[in-house]
């Protein structure tokens, strides 16, 4: 699918004045996500009908509409939204296909997701990158979850308001540390002097805050804390549902962690280290 996106981008770049739309297709798949002591039933947006544990990131050009086809392979209906920007009233029925026309968005990073109960709690949420042209691009889809709550939803149960939310897993692109080092979309490997963009969405049920070791990064875009665009910081809060684009300049060699500084979130089922930790590896 990524090749299709690139082809779409090329066509759009060539035909900017013709207002050509990019086209893309997503599959809603169900599967299982394994984390230390737990196996959780989850839902994901994938680029094929084959289940993958990570939601796929979509790329499109800025200020042009996107035609997005969603195929629902799940057994219950789901909807489709872009956080804070658009909500489609149409449900995608089981085994059905629906095409959404997403109007032009400005350069930045957005969260696309399903806000129905199963979609929300079982992880149907991904990264939409708009108008990012840098050669080196990475993305981090942040999530937190409580297995007991997911079990209840996946088995058709209801959530009880009085039950406290006590998340036990905190992930980046569905990876938890140390497995985040296996994630080519999230583990940042660059050469000294290179630059990259990092697109981050908070798909969790709480705010998160990421601290960069070794580097300051610049806010290129954000969907919520817009006054911060242009700020240069080492600690980046992400409110629930927020999408942020950061610019990283690899100005020193070495291996440096990036991690959640709400330190309950650098654990796997309570054990440190784990959770939302990934690495920046800058080679000569």
């Amino acid at each position, binding site marked *: 699918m990524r090749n299709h996106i690139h082809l779409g981008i090329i066509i759009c770049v060539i035909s900017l004045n013709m207002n050509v739309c990019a086209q893309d297709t997503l599959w809603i798949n169900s599967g299982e996500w394994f984390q230390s002591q737990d196996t959780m039933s989850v839902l994901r947006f994938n680029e094929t009908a084959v289940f993958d544990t990570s939601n796929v990131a979509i790329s499109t050009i800025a200020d042009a509409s996107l035609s997005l086809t969603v195929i629902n392979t799940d057994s219950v209906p789901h909807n489709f939204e872009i956080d804070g920007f658009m909500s489609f009233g149409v449900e995608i029925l089981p085994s059905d296909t629906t095409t959404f026309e997403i109007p032009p968005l400005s350069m930045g990073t957005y969260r696309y997701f399903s806000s129905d109960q199963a979609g929300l709690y079982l992880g149907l949420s991904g990264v939409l990158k708009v108008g990012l042209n840098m050669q080196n691009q990475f993305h981090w889809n942040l999530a937190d979850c409580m297995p007991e709550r997911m079990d209840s939803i996946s088995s058709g149960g209801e959530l009880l308001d009085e039950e*406290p*939310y*006590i*998340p*036990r897993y905190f992930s980046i692109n569905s990876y938890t540390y140390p497995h985040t080092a296996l994630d080519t979309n999230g583990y940042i490997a660059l050469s000294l002097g290179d630059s990259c963009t990092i697109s981050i969405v908070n798909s969790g049920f*709480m*705010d998160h*805050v990421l*601290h960069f*070791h*070794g*580097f*300051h990064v610049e806010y290129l875009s954000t969907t919520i804390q817009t*006054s911060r665009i*242009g*700020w*240069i*910081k*080492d*600690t980046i*809060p992400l409110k629930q549902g927020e999408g942020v684009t950061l610019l990283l300049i690899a100005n*020193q*060699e*070495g*291996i*440096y*962690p990036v991690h959640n*500084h*709400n*330190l*309950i*979130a*650098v*654990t796997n*089922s*309570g*054990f*440190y*280290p784990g959770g939302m930790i990934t690495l920046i590896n800058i080679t000569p």
Partner: protein
Amino acid sequence: MRLYIVILFVASLFCLNAFNSIAQTFSPPPLFFAGMDGILISDDGMDIPIWGYGLSSDGYITAPGPLLEYETGDEVNLAFVNNSPESHTIHLHGLDVDQANDGVPTTSFLVVMDEIGSYSFTASEPGTFLYHCHVTTTLHLTMGMYGMILVRHPGGVLFEGGPSYYSDAPLLFSDLEIATNLDPVQSYPFHDIRPDYFMVNGRSGSQLETGSAGMPGESGTIISCPNGESIALRLGSMAYTLTKIIIPSELEGMCYMSDGRPVPSPFEVEELDIYPGERFTILISPEAEYDGSIEVQSWDMVNREYVHSNFVRIRDAALNISTPHIQSPLSLSISPNPSSDFITVNTNDAGPIEDWAIYNASGKIVLEGQTDLHLMRVDISSLESGSYILESINGQKHYRARFIK
């Protein structure tokens, strides 16, 4: 070179005269140490065990650790002795140090029991930074192993081309879960740590005005503002909770920096969210006779629930009666220091001593008395080895100085 400096530091601990002669030549930075046997006295008088950092010259640890102060461009070598049974590090949060000095055990180095480590870096950017242990961080932070770093720019400005200001008011927000601190060995799992004690500069509630429990006369975190002058609030969070700052509009708060960098467009601020690890620099300019407070709210990060408020008093210096300064003047001199039997206390022409007391590291009075002399000799032979604070009270004035036996 690094090893050579460390050896000098260690030697200085055992030979005060040698230390003084070294200090006259190149002013070495303080030697840091880590410990796991500290006590934080809560607002209601409870002894809460802490781990933390301290200056070897003081001999005790605190939470937060000592404020580290540098000037833009300083070449820093921070020596670090681990006097505790577990390994520790110092992560220099926000200073963008290289990998070798990053303080992360897996990519940098550990400082194991009874060993010395040294962190080198250039304080290349002015601003507010933090430091903390990065070993089993989730536990070591709630136990108290953190502190603040200020890098000041020369010329009394926040940064090159930035606004001038009168003085700094460092405010470090943190919290802890009392049950974890009482029994860190049984503290797993860590994902459900929910703090229930909330601090500004290690103090909470009434301590922010009266000083630590058991330490009467020690000024709390009251910020004294001379009329018309700007105070730089150096705000940083080492909390597990979201910190929400409420600044009264009369203080005309303006945010100029975050995370050690100027913000592109300074902005007025009356309410500000500070997430764990973030820092902000805000200038306030209280009008004459202002007497009010900044509210420091703590919010649960998981459930977005308000949990607690502390208040930091701000008032016009002209209204001050006693010693409402951030750092109390230490007009007393004590010699010899360290001493094993007798110390001589001199008020340095600040008036007679009158009432005096000696506090141990837990804040308890171990010796006290009265005199109308400017100079007195005190027999400390009955005290156990350790660090002490001698306080003299002359009318409304409180003077304090530390000594080591």
